[in-house]
C-alpha cells in the first residue's frame, strides 16, 4: 500500500479521502489555493502545499502545479476526488507519465467516457441502450436548429465535456434555443474549458438511476447496486438514496449487467458510476459514465457495507477486490441530503459567507461529512456543497424518519442552506410514496413559511431581543479609552498589541 497520497481537491471530499487514507495508514497530503489557507482540509492533512490564487483555473485545475507538489513531497499516488481534475484524461496521463499512481481509471477510459458522443457510440456497440440524440459535437446555431427540428422538442443541450449539471439546458420551444445555446456554451467554457455541446432528446419525467461499479486490475468487474438520484435542481443532484423505490430485483440484475458491460467496454478500472435514465415503463437508457468517486457514494457504502474510498485505494495499489458479485447484498435503505450554501426560498440562489453558528447532527446511523466549521468562510469561488448528510435505516420509512430527526438537529447560521428544503421534502407525500422524477422539485417545491404559531414567533423575537441586550452589555463592558497608567502595565500592553495584530 502507498505511504503517502496527495489529494488534489478541497472541501468535504478531500476530507473524506483523507479519512480513508488514515484508516489504511497512508499519510494524506493537501493542496490549497490562497482562499483556502484556513480550510478544514488543510487543517486535517499531514502536509499541505499552496498551489495558486483563489480561482480554480489558477490553482485546483493546474495540472503542472499539482504534479510538481506531489513529486516534491514524495507522494506515490494522487486522489483527484470529484470535480476539478477528477475526469481530466490529460491529468491522469500526466500522473502516469510521471510515475504517480492516479487513483481512478486509466486515462484512456476517462477520455472515452469524457467525450460524451464517443461514449454513446461505444455503449451502442457494447449493446447498452442510449438516449436518442446526435453522436457528434455541434458547430453552430444553424446546425443545432436543423438537428433539433428533425428530433422534435423537448431537447436537452449538454456540454460535450460535461458533468455536474453544468452546461446543460432543457429547451421546450424553438424561441428558447438561441439563449439556451449561448448559456450552455458559456457555462461549458467556464466549467470545462471547452464550449463544445451536443443535443439529446429529452426523456420526459425520467428517474435518474445510477449503478456503482468496481473494477480491479485483475479483470474482475462487479456492481454494487443502484442509487436513485432523481431529486435535482439545475440538473444537479440534491438527494440520493439506495435502493431506488422503483427498483425490482429483475431490473437491478439487467441494469447491473449493462453497467458491467459498459465498464468492460471502456477497459475500466477502479470505482465508477454508470448513469441511466429510467422511464415510466422501466426502460433504461445509458446517460453517461462518471469515471470517478461520486458525491453520493456513501448511500452505497451504507447499504453494502463496502467503503468505496478504501476500495479505490486498494485497487489503485494493485490489490484484487476480494469479493465477487454474489457476495454483494443491499441491506436496508440509505438517504443522502446534500447541504448546499444556497437559499431554497430564492430559487436555490448561492449564499456564500461566514458560518457563524454550526450545530451538527449525530446519533445512530447518522453520518455528516462536512467541509466547513463554525467561524469559517464559505467561498464564492467554489462549489456550494458544504456537507452531505447521510442516514441508514432498516427500511426506507425508517431512514426518512431518521433523516427528519437529523435535519432537525442541524443548525447552520450566517448563510442560507438547503436544510429547509430537505425538511419539506422529507414530509412530501410524493417523496414518501417514492413517486420521483427529475422534474420533481420544479413541479412540487413551493417554499412556504411555517404555519403561524404565536408562541414560536414570540420566542424568536425574544431570542433576538436577548441577543441585542447581550451585545449592548458587551459593548458597555469593553473600555473605549484607557488612562495613561494602563500604558505602563506590560501585560495589558502586550495584550493590546496582540489584539491589534489579530485585528490587522
Amino acid at each position, binding site marked *: 500500500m502507498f505511504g503517502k497520497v496527495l489529494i488534489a481537491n478541497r472541501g468535504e471530499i478531500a476530507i473524506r479521502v483523507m479519512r480513508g487514507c488514515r484508516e489504511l495508514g497512508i499519510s494524506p497530503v493537501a493542496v490549497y489555493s490562497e482562499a483556502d489557507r484556513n480550510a478544514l482540509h488543510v487543517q486535517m492533512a499531514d502536509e499541505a502545499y499552496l498551489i495558486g490564487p483563489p480561482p480554480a483555473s489558477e490553482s485546483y485545475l493546474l495540472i503542472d502545479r499539482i504534479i510538481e507538489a506531489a513529486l516534491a513531497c514524495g507522494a506515490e499516488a494522487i486522489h483527484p476526488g470529484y470535480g476539478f481534475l477528477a475526469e481530466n484524461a490529460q491529468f491522469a496521463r500526466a500522473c502516469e507519465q510521471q510515475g504517480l499512481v492516479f487513483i481512478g481509471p486509466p486515462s484512456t477510459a476517462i477520455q472515452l467516457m469524457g467525450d460524451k458522443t464517443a461514449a454513446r457510440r461505444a455503449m451502442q456497440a457494447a449493446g447498452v441502450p442510449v438516449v436518442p440524440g446526435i453522436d457528434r459535437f455541434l458547430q453552430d446555431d444553424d446546425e443545432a436548429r436543423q438537428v433539433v427540428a428533425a428530433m422534435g422538442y423537448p431537447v436537452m443541450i449538454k456540454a460535450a465535456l460535461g458533468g455536474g449539471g453544468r452546461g446543460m439546458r432543457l429547451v421546450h420551444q424553438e424561441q428558447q434555443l438561441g439563449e439556451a445555446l449561448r448559456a450552455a456554451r458559456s457555462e461549458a467554457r467556464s466549467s470545462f474549458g471547452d464550449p463544445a455541446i451536443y443535443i439529446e432528446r429529452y426523456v420526459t419525467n425520467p428517474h435518474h438511476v445510477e449503478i456503482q461499479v468496481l473494477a480491479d486490475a485483475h479483470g474482475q468487474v462487479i456492481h454494487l447496486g443502484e442509487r436513485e438520484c432523481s431529486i435535482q435542481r439545475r440538473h444537479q443532484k440534491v438527494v440520493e438514496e439506495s435502493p431506488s423505490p422503483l427498483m425490482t430485483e429483475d431490473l437491478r440484475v439487467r441494469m447491473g449487467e449493462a453497467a458491467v458491460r459498459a465498464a468492460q467496454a471502456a477497459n475500466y478500472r477502479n470505482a465508477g458510476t454508470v448513469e441511466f435514465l429510467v422511464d415510466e415503463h422501466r426502460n433504461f437508457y445509458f446517460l453517461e459514465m462518471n469515471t470517478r468517486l461520486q458525491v453520493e457514494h456513501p448511500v452505497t457504502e451504507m447499504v453494502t457495507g463496502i467503503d468505496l474510498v478504501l476500495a479505490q485505494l486498494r485497487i489503485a495499489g494493485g490489490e484484487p477486490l476480494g469479493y465477487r458479485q454474489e457476495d454483494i447484498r443491499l441491506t436496508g435503505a440509505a438517504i443522502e441530503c446534500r447541504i448546499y450554501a444556497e437559499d431554497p426560498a430564492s430559487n436555490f440562489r448561492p449564499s*456564500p459567507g461566514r458560518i457563524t*453558528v454550526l450545530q451538527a447532527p449525530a446519533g445512530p446511523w447518522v453520518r455528516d461529512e462536512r467541509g466547513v466549521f463554525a467561524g469559517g468562510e464559505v467561498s464564492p469561488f467554489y462549489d456550494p456543497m458544504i456537507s452531505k448528510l447521510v442516514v441508514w435505516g432498516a427500511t426506507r420509512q425508517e431512514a426518512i424518519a431518521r433523516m427528519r430527526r437529523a435535519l432537525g438537529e442541524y443548525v447552520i447560521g450566517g448563510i442560507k442552506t438547503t436544510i429547509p428544503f430537505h425538511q419539506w421534502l422529507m414530509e412530501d407525500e410524493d417523496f414518501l410514496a417514492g413517486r420521483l422524477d427529475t422534474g420533481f422539485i420544479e413541479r412540487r417545491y413551493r417554499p412556504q413559511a411555517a404555519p403561524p404559531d404565536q408562541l414560536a414567533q414570540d420566542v*424568536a423575537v*425574544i431570542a433576538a431581543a436577548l441577543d441585542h441586550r447581550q451585545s449592548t452589555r458587551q459593548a458597555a463592558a469593553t473600555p473605549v479609552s484607557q488612562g495613561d497608567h494602563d500604558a505602563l502595565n506590560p501585560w495589558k500592553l502586550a495584550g493590546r498589541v496582540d489584539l491589534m495584530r489579530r485585528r490587522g
Partner: protein
Amino acid sequence: MRLLANAGGVTHTVELDEGNGTGFVRVKVDDREYLIDVANPAPGHYSLLVRGKVFSAFVWQRRGRREVQVGDRSASVEVVSAQGPRPSARPAAAVGGRQEITAPMSGRVVQVLVQPGQMVADGESLVIIEAMKMETEIRAVARGQVKDIRVSANLAVEAGQLLLVIDS
C-alpha cells in the same frame, strides 16, 4: 429594557425585565407576558424554558438584522432600543419609482446585459453574476429606464453592492 423588534414586516414592543439573578426573565411581547428561564450556553445560543417547554434558539447578525433559528423555524428580526429611531421596514425593492438593483450574493459580474437609457420590462435580465460556479441572472422587478450602471464585466462584487439604478 424596552426594545422594538421588527419581524416579518410587523414591529413588536419587547420589554425585558431581569429577575434577581435566578435566570428567570419576565418578558412582554406586545400584550403577551412570559416568565422565561433563560440560559446562554454558548455565544449566540439561547436556551429558553417557557412553562417547561424547551426552545433552543440560535441567533446571528446579518446585514444589520438578527437571524434567529428556533427548531425548524427561522426569522429575521431587527431590534432597536425603544428610545432610538423606529426600525426600518424591510428595504423595498422600488422606492419612489426608483429601483436600486443590488447583488444578492458576492461573486463576479459575467455580463451587463443593458445600457444606460435603455427601457427594460418587468422581469428582464439586467446583469449576470457568477458565484459558486453558477450563473445567476439579476432581473428588473418593475419596468423602467436604466439610469446608472455601477459595474462592468469581470468585476468582483460583494453581497448588497449596488449594481445599477432603474427609474420606473
